[in-house]
């Protein structure tokens, strides 16, 4: 075994801040920009201290214009920079969609490689913070549907840092969705219980300095035989807690990257367990769970011992007062687990 790398306990915000700091230091072409990210350091503090350390032309505030932020980032990428724009909430990304879908995603293809858009769009996403319908959405499926964009969603501080560094170094455009419910601590879905800080979670032990976690590689959170659980972001922790509470020996896979997807890890696991539970917070219809379900059905049909289960948010806008009725929490997951374990024959 190699010598232990020095590490620190960090929450997800601190881990993201560390990744940005490291990349701003290592690569003079990296620039960080977005609404309120400069002097103030971002509404979630992800860029705190970076402008002071790296200067106002490397880390700066932008006008409130997501179309502009992403369009300008594409132009900077064409120049040779490696921009890391922040969209303050994933819910605000829609004015920038044309620049992402028609421009960033297709620039390499349409110019036959003459121009590329090596940009990493960071954006807090997901609910569970009483953010209402404009601060809670999970729009990842809009991006996984687009040819030419990679979609990355970390679930731990350690992963957030390593994946963000890999995303910034990637030469393709990456959407990096940060599950804001777990910025400060892993959330087990039991919203009426006290919040656990990251400090007590083993994955908050974040190695110092530069390291990458490759895009396209899933993480086996827990090995098990009873079923395979496919999740990402906040729902990794919720699923883990529910299955532990029910005493089910499930194999839990944190996908980390939706495109490119680690299909080998999924296939190997489902073919062994014969059962598959998919959990995401986003709305159900045409959600990424539908894609996962189709892939598992196509590739593992003869190994399946029960219908694939999908646990998702409801097909409504994200509510405010009834947030926990919307959220795919322990009861909804628990029901699906029970169905998987005792299928009606």
């Amino acid at each position: 075994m190699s010598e232990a790398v020095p590490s620190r306990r960090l929450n997800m915000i601190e881990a993201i801040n560390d990744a940005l700091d490291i990349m701003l230091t290592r690569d003079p072409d990296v620039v960080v920009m977005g609404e309120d990210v400069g002097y103030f350091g971002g509404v979630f503090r992800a860029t705190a201290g970076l402008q002071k350390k790296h200067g106002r032309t490397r880390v700066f505030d932008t006008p409130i214009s997501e179309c502009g932020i992403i369009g300008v980032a594409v132009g900077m990428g064409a120049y040779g920079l490696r921009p890391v724009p922040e969209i303050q909430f994933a819910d605000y990304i829609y004015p920038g969609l044309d620049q992402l879908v028609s421009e960033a995603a297709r620039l390499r293809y349409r110019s036959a490689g003459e121009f590329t858009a090596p940009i990493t769009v960071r954006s807090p996403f997901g609910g569970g913070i009483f953010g209402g319908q404009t601060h809670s959405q999970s729009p990842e499926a809009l991006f996984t549907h687009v040819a030419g964009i990679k979609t990355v969603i970390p679930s731990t501080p350690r992963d957030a840092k390593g994946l963000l560094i890999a995303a910034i170094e990637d030469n393709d455009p990456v959407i990096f969705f940060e599950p804001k419910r777990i910025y400060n601590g892993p959330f087990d879905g039991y919203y009426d219980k006290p919040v656990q800080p990251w400090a007590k979670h083993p994955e908050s032990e974040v190695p110092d300095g530069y390291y990458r976690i490759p895009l396209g590689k899933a993480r086996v959170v827990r090995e098990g035989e009873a079923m395979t659980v496919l999740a990402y972001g906040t729902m990794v922790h919720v699923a883990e807690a529910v299955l532990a509470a029910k005493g089910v020996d499930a194999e839990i896979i944190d996908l980390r990257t939706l495109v490119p997807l680690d299909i080998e890890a999924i296939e190997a696991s489902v073919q062994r367990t014969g059962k598959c539970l998919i959990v995401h917070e986003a709305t159900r219809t045409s959600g990424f769970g539908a894609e996962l379900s189709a892939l598992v059905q196509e590739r593992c049909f003869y190994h399946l011992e029960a219908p694939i289960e999908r646990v998702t948010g409801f097909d409504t806008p994200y509510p405010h007062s009834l947030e926990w009725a919307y959220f795919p929490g322990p009861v909804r997951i628990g029901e699906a687990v029970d169905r998987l374990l005792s299928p009606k024959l």
Partner: protein
Amino acid sequence: MTDPERANLPPLQLHVPEPRFRPGDQVDYSHLPITAAGVQPRPDEACAASETHPLCLDLVRVLGEDHLAVGPWDPKLAPETLRRMLRLMALTRAFDDRMYRGQRQGKTSFYMKCTGEEATSIAPAMALAADDMVFPSYRQQGILIARGYPMVDMVNQIYSNKADKLKGRQLPIMYSAREVSFFSISGNLATQYPQAVGWAMASAIKGDTRIAAAWLGEGSTAEGDFHSAMTFAAVYNAPVVFNVVNNQWAISSFSGFAGAERTTFAARAIGYGIAGLRVDGNDPLAVYAASRWAANRARANAGPTLVEHFTYRAEGHSTSDDPGQYRSLQERSEWPLGDPIARLARHLEALGEWTPDDHAAMDLELAEEVKAAAKVAEANGVLGHGLHHPFRTLFEDVFEELPWHLREQSEQAIRERQIKWPEWKEEDS
């Protein structure tokens, strides 16, 4: 129930703009205010943006009725430079004519001419440095021609053949030419505007000396990207030149649908705190002078400029368009600002530097040059006749590396091919 206080008011009325002339109408442009050449002041290139406001409502013009260059905007170009400008515009027109015919002969699916608007590409390209990055819209083929990009490569792209540098992926004329600092043309409108600002910001971040320039049509100023770009350029004082080619028509929608009934397009700059110039787009010397002014201003960190080129789209929007369906064909002949090539030729003649015989000889020579290039390109194939890029290139460049799902899909595509043509081999596709 209507509030009794409002009972006597006339009902609200929606104004839907309507152009002055429709098919068959007599065209009379006497309503257009066109000031004499030479009378517009030329402010200092580093002036306050607001100082340019009068120029946003006027028209910068250099070539007068007597075909001589007059006033403070006269760029005083040497005769050989003027002849080069004339030749580049004429070459662009010759190229357009050839490619238009190529499309009609079935060699490609689509083409877009820039007839009458040649000055709005050629003159800015000559005023910019060769390595300034341009973010064109779809009617700036003149920039490639001015920058010496091989015409054969342009035709290869238009024919989507096996030598097309864009691997047959883009609609004809949606060029990309990094070697001459020409950004990939999107086809979605106005997206290049914020990108040009980003490129210019990057150049400033890096302490470079290169600037960016972008083009779009007046119709596309209605897109949100235009507003985003203007805001970012103003906020960061980005070294960028915005060109709005106001050719009066966006397919069948006249400029009134982009707001031209209310103010000029140049005037939009003032609200952002950006310098604005409104230029006779068919006067190549005025376009050159305005472009030079804006480029110098940007390069001196004095800020961005919006240049409105007031011109006329002499032909259809594209080969898929028939302008006779929605506008009077007299518009072209009555256009009060004439034709940019004819005007520059008259100017050179007035200087004693050019003759109609020279012009006729040049046109013959250029037609031959284009014909020869088209012939070379045609040997690489025309659209739909089998000489395209290798089959596997369909899946390349979506990402830097081929992910598993695209590898699987490429295998599927090859299988389909083999089912359809059992003799087909991937290697010789």
